[in-house]
């Protein structure tokens, strides 16, 4: 038990691939990636499991690969979840400080957290994350730790991410079915942003867009806290499907064309250019207009960015994104996507790379592993918190118990 407690594993069951990242935490809590396993995912659509048997098979393959590489036995994982049913919103909790001298105690803080978490969710939904943003003491903004301060009214803004309980349970049950324990479930967008953003960027305000195979997750940080989260069930699969429909080629061929000739904006050299598709004997089957190919892709990706930009506008967050937009996920490999995003968002756009993680750099610099790395990182942060807070204080016990309940 003690030996492997410094191993943290992130598992992402994505629409195009299943990815397992094994990290080792040193004494200071820093994370070092020592293993990676991945398998093609066949039983997932739009981020949600549609064929558990196939997913289980692929999952075993990925876990086996990661175990081989890291030379450890994986017992528990931090599981990434996504899907169109996941939503985020902000909620404010209020608590009146009752003690005579009006000093805010730890109990007051726990109470206000409880109040902020008490939200009206639809019966079938459950909370995935409840993240503290800021405390207000007597209406004063921007307090991060109010314990010991004087005040009469304590308020707390919280960001709550919630999703359909059954659909979340599907993924958890499936992982448990392969004799793996699920430490915690984490929204993929949150995981990606953890891997990508540095503390400064979170302070400045940043939008992380993870363009996956079946879903696109986005998370906004500002003033060091999560402000906004969301999922659009549109991803690389949609691009391939559009191409298959528009160019009248099979889906597998469309996927290949997308990777070989795709671009986020119609390039100069593509104008009027055609390529021929050949069968396995080298005979020409069809000629494809590259300009059409790129146009179909560009309208789809532009629409995706516009939908997110619209939502930012509606939430009034556009002006808070001072560090700009960060792209990751397999979809961010499309050439020219940064330029397209810059024209849509009218701000600085960067291709994100996981930072503050060491080990296996050449494989982990790839954008599609962001979420899985972020999951491992989330785990390492949780571990650090756990060791920092001894179990046998009232709060610690409560939390440990809460964790226990959370899992079941």
């Amino acid at each position, binding site marked *: 038990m003690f030996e492997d407690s410094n191993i943290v594993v992130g598992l992402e069951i994505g629409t195009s691939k299943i990815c397992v990242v094994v990290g080792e935490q040193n004494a200071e809590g820093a994370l070092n990636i020592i293993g990676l396993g991945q398998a093609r995912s066949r039983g997932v659509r739009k981020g949600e499991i549609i064929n558990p048997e196939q997913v289980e098979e692929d999952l075993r393959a990925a876990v086996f690969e990661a175990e081989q590489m890291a030379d450890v036995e994986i017992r528990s994982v931090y599981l990434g979840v996504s899907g169109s049913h996941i939503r985020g919103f902000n909620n404010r909790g209020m608590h009146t400080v009752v003690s005579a001298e009006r000093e805010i105690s730890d109990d007051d803080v726990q109470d206000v957290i409880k109040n902020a978490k008490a939200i009206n969710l639809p019966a079938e939904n459950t909370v995935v994350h409840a993240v503290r943003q800021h405390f207000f003491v007597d209406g004063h903004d921007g307090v991060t730790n109010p314990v010991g301060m004087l005040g009469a009214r304590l308020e707390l803004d919280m960001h709550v991410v919630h999703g359909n309980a059954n659909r979340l349970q599907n993924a958890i049950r499936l992982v448990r079915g392969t004799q793996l324990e699920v430490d915690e479930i984490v929204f993929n967008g949150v995981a990606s942003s953890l891997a990508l953003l540095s503390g400064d960027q979170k302070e400045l305000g940043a939008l992380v867009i993870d363009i996956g195979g079946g879903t696109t997750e986005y998370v906004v940080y500002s003033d060091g806290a999560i402000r906004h989260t969301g999922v659009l069930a549109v991803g690389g699969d949609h691009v391939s499907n559009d191409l298959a429909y528009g160019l009248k080629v099979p889906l597998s061929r469309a996927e290949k064309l997308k990777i070989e000739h795709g671009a986020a904006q119609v390039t100069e050299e593509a104008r009027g250019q055609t390529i021929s598709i050949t069968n396995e004997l080298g005979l020409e089957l069809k000629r494809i207009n590259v300009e059409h190919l790129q146009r179909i892709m560009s309208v789809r990706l532009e*629409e995706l960015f516009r939908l997110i930009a619209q939502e930012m506008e509606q939430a009034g967050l556009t002006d808070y994104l001072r560090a700009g937009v960060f792209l990751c996920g397999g979809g961010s490999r499309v050439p020219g996507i940064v330029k397209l995003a810059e024209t849509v968002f009218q701000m600085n756009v960067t291709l994100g790379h996981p930072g503050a993680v060491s080990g296996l750099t050449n494989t982990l610099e790839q954008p599609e592993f962001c979420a899985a790395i972020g999951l491992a990182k989330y785990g390492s942060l949780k571990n650090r918190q756990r060791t920092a807070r001894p179990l046998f204080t009232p709060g610690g016990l409560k939390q440990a118990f809460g964790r226990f309940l959370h899992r079941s």
Partner: protein
Amino acid sequence: MATDNENPVADALIPETSGAPLVKIFGAGNAGAKLLGALTTPEFAAAQSAIIDTDASGFAASNATVKIHLENKLLRGLGSGGDPERAKAMAEEQFSTLKSACEGASVVFILAGLGGGAGSGISPILARAAREAGALVLAFVTLPFDCEGNRREAQAQTALEQLKAAADGVVCLPSQKIFKLIDENTSLVETFSFSGGFLIEGVRGVWQLLTRPGLIQVHFADLCGLLRDRHAENVFAFVEATGAGRSREVVEKILAHPLLDEGRALADSEAVLVSLLAGKDLTMAEVNRVMEQVKRQCSHAQIIMGAAVDADLKSKLCVTIIAARQTPASMPVRVEARTGTSNPAGKSDIVIARPSRVRRTGAKAVQTQLPLTIVSKGRFDKSEPTLHHGEDLDVPTFIRRGIPLN
């Protein structure tokens, strides 16, 4: 042959010369007669109603002004036997009677259940007769349940196509969609009366729009402009809510309505008619809220709205929406037209009629598709659709935007 007297049909339906448009309601076939019977509310008392059927057995129970019995010696009064062609032949034979029955009306409503013999056969002919008589023709029809079998389904589809070509507008209620609105324990009788009631609500919505002095009046000319020559298939929904948040509730119900495909039907409609009816406390803000949401859903559509007040409704707010679906612009419409003045009964020429009107938005080179498959979503055909403000994001963007690839 039709009736005993000399020309009772024309006598009974002499046009009235009042200001309001004269509305005549026809029930064709057995289901049509039943629907007509259900229009018992006092507001319809002013309308003239008529039943047309091949089988006279239902006539006695009906209190329609005019009863036209289409009969033929061959059938010995046994009805059309579920064959629309027979019913159609008989209707063609009586074309002049039908036409004179429609004479003088500004608007003709046709109620029918498609799929059987009489309703499917008579209603397209009746629609043509009414149009030739100079009326605006709106047909309200039900399509059969899936379980009623292939033959009825096919007959209903053929009749619907013919009716669409002949009438100005067809409001159609696929009975199968009713399943989403009823619970499992509903009896068969209740189900049929429910689906009939649904159609009646559509009729009532249009009726109110035309006849009731509204706060925001819809002129008859507006309705004509919206529907005439469009030959569109319409979908409709009727929702109501009471209490303080009623306007919001109404909007939510509209957007979740199964007959509107959860609001998607609004997104690809080209004309939308909204009729609001409420008690005396109807506020402008409520009207505004409903209309704003509807407008947001159907940005491409021409919208006609009317609002009226009925003190009996108290705090209830009722909204009827009729949305005309776009039909692919380059599809030739098959119309059975009568060429010349006399045509041997039962024979009708099939001609390729004028192509349906080019859309106002400019003729973009949109990829045309067969009307049977709406838009293939390929890989996402069977998965839960990704809806974003009523738009299905699974459909390729370039198709939704109408971007030409040439």
